[in-house]
């Protein structure tokens, strides 16, 4: 769910570690099955949740902060999910991300009277008796939600809230965000337990954005006690766990909230997040029973060894993430301004080889929308690997001998690996690609500037909310194609997609709307501003003592649903 930021850990160093450990792997493989203080034996498949115990989680890199209005990365979101609640949330169950009620009694719909005024008014009824955690210990009311939403949207109180634009459709939010108003007129407290939100136009992803942690409820008096910026280190909400402490660079500890409004939850007494810098070390810790959840996945260098080990492979969980890795081609730069060349690239790159290179951490994707995103067509394949066809198209385009080009990538795993594989493929069809590798931050700065004229390179995108507008808007729309700093780094747009996109916007989710997105995908793949490479799979591990473990499409980790055997 979270657009994961990858800047917070020294991954290239880790990649080095992983490579270095390749030698060690043979050694580990030889004795791995007998190792571990936690003892051998099959994982018990106990399905009855048990209360009590501490779950130790290892995260590679420290969260930036736990202010739900600000933080936007996997680590922060999965911890915030333990501390805070919104009006709506995402179902805490395996499978696709489905919006469900959190502090609201029900998800508003036209049928239940929650959505009125032609889709422009949302009414939320709050559960009674939801208490803020100690020491605030008072009931949550509708005005707390109004205050929290306005705090998140007001640049004076929250200058760094990055997600304000998701709530632009609320009446008065633009004025609030511009500093011209103190409140958003569209957020109305009807009574103690009723909040009404007016939109300027129907917005069918409004449920989704109201389920994101940005809208979590905070206690005004608690924020006043610290400060708007210090709340990131002193979070207090209504959720199943109470923040206990955060030792800088070391760990974050949460304790069970005895007054949580869902009876019987959470199961755990304590959650401890430890920050490891090396994923190899984290894996050793899991195998020796020191940690229970590998928060940052299995290091790719050890993936094969773990999944072929009879004891440990049972502890591996793999779930596709709603995201994609792809090659972008700048349609304003020669030779990629030529459609035939772009299509030739789609035939020339062997994506199956790339998926093999990633050892089960990737699944095929020959379209724009990944599995789990409406608009995705199962098994759709617009291009196959066909170097002969690629050569033929290049000849037709006027490049019978190919051409030379600089291929851009950043240096964080797996990008350099992908770039080398692609360089090889392109050489087969006569295209001499010279790889230019940059550090991640300057890389984004460069490719997101149109005047930099970066011809071709690698990028990725992860879902914010499960609606295909989250793909078309930032990646393939005209407004993104004409704005520096946007993620449409092909700088491609088409009147056809624009027309379909605006047609889809006022439509309610459903088959007809999804059909439009399928049509947009057809156009995009035919015009080929991108070469889809694969959909990432998050492979992670839990200890034998962890119960109820799964990875959530929305939260990645759903700690309140796990227990300790």
């Amino acid at each position, binding site marked *: 769910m979270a657009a994961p930021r990858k800047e917070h850990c020294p991954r290239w160093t880790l990649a080095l570690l992983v490579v270095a450990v390749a030698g060690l792997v043979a050694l580990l493989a030889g004795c791995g099955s007998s190792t571990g203080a936690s003892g051998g034996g099959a994982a018990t498949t106990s399905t009855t949740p048990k209360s009590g115990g501490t779950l130790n989680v290892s995260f590679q890199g420290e969260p930036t902060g736990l202010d739900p209005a600000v933080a936007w990365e996997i680590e922060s979101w999965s911890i915030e999910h333990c501390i805070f609640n919104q009006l709506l949330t995402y179902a805490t169950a395996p499978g696709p991300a489905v919006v469900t009620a959190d502090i609201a009694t029900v998800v508003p719909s036209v049928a239940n009277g929650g959505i009125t005024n032609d889709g422009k008014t949302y009414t939320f009824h709050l559960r009674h008796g939801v208490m803020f955690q100690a020491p605030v210990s008072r009931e949550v009311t509708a005005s707390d939600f109004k205050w929290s939403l306005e705090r998140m949207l007001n640049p004076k109180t929250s200058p760094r809230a990055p997600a304000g634009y998701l709530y632009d459709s609320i009446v008065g939010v633009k004025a609030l965000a511009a500093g011209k108003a103190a409140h958003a007129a569209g957020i109305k407290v009807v009574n103690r337990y009723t909040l009404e939100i007016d939109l300027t136009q129907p917005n069918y992803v409004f449920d989704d954005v109201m389920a994101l942690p940005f809208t979590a409820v905070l206690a005004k008096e608690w924020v006043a006690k610290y400060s708007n910026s210090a709340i990131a280190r002193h979070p207090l909400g209504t959720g199943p766990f109470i923040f206990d402490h955060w030792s800088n660079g070391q760990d974050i500890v949460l304790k069970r909230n005895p007054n949580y409004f869902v009876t019987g939850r959470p199961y755990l007494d304590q959650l*401890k997040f430890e920050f490891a810098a090396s994923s190899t070390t984290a894996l050793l810790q899991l195998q020796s029973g020191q940690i229970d959840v590998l928060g940052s996945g299995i290091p790719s260098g050890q993936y094969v060894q773990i999944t072929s080990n009879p004891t440990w492979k049972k502890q591996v969980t793999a779930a596709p993430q709603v995201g994609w890795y792809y090659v972008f081609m700048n349609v304003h730069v020669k030779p990629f301004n030529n459609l035939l060349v772009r299509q030739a690239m789609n035939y020339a790159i062997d994506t199956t080889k790339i998926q093999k290179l990633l050892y089960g951490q990737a699944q095929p994707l020959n379209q724009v929308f990944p599995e789990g995103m409406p608009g995705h067509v199962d098994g759709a394949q617009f291009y196959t690997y066909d170097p002969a066809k690629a050569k033929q198209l290049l000849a037709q385009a006027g490049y019978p001998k190919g051409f030379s080009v600089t291929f851009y990538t950043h240096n964080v795993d797996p990008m350099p690996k992908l770039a080398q594989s692609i360089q090889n493929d392109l050489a087969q069809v006569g295209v001499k690609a010279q790889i230019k590798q940059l550090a991640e931050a300057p890389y984004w700065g460069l490719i997101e500037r149109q005047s930099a004229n970066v011809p071709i390179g690698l990028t990725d995108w992860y879902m914010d909310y499960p609606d295909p507008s989250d793909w078309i808007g930032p990646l393939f729309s005209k407004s993104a194609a004409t704005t520096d700093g946007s993620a449409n780094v092909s700088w491609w747009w088409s009147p056809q997609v624009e027309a379909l996109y605006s047609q889809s916007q006022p439509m309610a989710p459903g088959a007809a709307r999804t059909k439009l997105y399928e049509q947009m995908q057809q156009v995009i793949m035919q015009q080929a501003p991108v070469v889809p490479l694969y959909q990432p799979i998050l492979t992670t591990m839990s200890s034998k003592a962890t119960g109820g473990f799964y990875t959530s499409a929305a939260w990645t980790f759903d700690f309140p649903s796990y227990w300790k055997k």
Partner: protein
Amino acid sequence: MGRYIVRRLLWAVVVVFCVSLITFLLAFAIPADPAKQIAGPHATPAVLAQIRHSLSLDRPLYYQYGLYMWHIVHGNLGYSYINQLPVTQSILQRFPATVMIAIFGIIFELLIGIPIGMVSALHQYSVRDRAFTIFSLVAVSMPTFFLGILLLYFFAFRMSIFPNLQAYPGALHPLYFVLPGLTLGLTGAAWYSRMLRSKMLDILNADYVKAARAKGLPERTVVWRHIMRNAWSPIITLLGMDIGWFLGGVLIVEIVFGIPGIGWQAWQAILNLDHPMIMGTVEFAALLVVLANLLTDIAYTWLDPRVKYS
């Protein structure tokens, strides 16, 4: 001597100032936007502009540097862009762990390096000498991260002798720092032993050593009073450099062993374009190097009465 120290300390201020200026310019020379690092990949241009404004990143460079120096003069290293914590506090919080790694690293360097160097020199071309030469070659060539993981695997995972796979307990637990120290120490010891060996071999043939032996002094006295006393200087030079370097943070060792030290913090700051944190950690490390060099120079005068500063 007193005046010398004062002069060196003043120079230290100049050096740290120059380092700060260069670091500042370098951090800004990176063509990347810290606001983007703060707000994440999906942030809109408007939010980015807001963040730039709130951090004064939209002001001219000289203004920003002036502001920074003004704060430094007032003892304030600023606040991290990323986690909003005071930089000084963050550095001091992580410093004890780095100090512990440094102490253990240096102890192992000396404990292993000096005996090996002495034995090698006193028994040149013997089997022991050759074995130690091979040890040195291996230890110098082996990358720190690989050595670290090997030690971690055998002594913490397989044999559970050291607690390095348990949650990091804080800097007051010496057992936790044995393996990190050994990782640094083995590599260092190899250098020390080679330096000591060659220096001692030079001295062994010096006239005053021959004279001492001719006087009939016991070998022990010859070695310790006449040879070692004069062979210390390369060790002290190396030691001075190591102290500064180790205290500035040893990234790879910190990462392999999961120890939140200064090196890890600096590295994260660089990846996050966290300018105040980058500046703070670099200046801190520069200061330590300068001070360690000063101590080394003072140590020379104490070891060798011929050295005089005026």
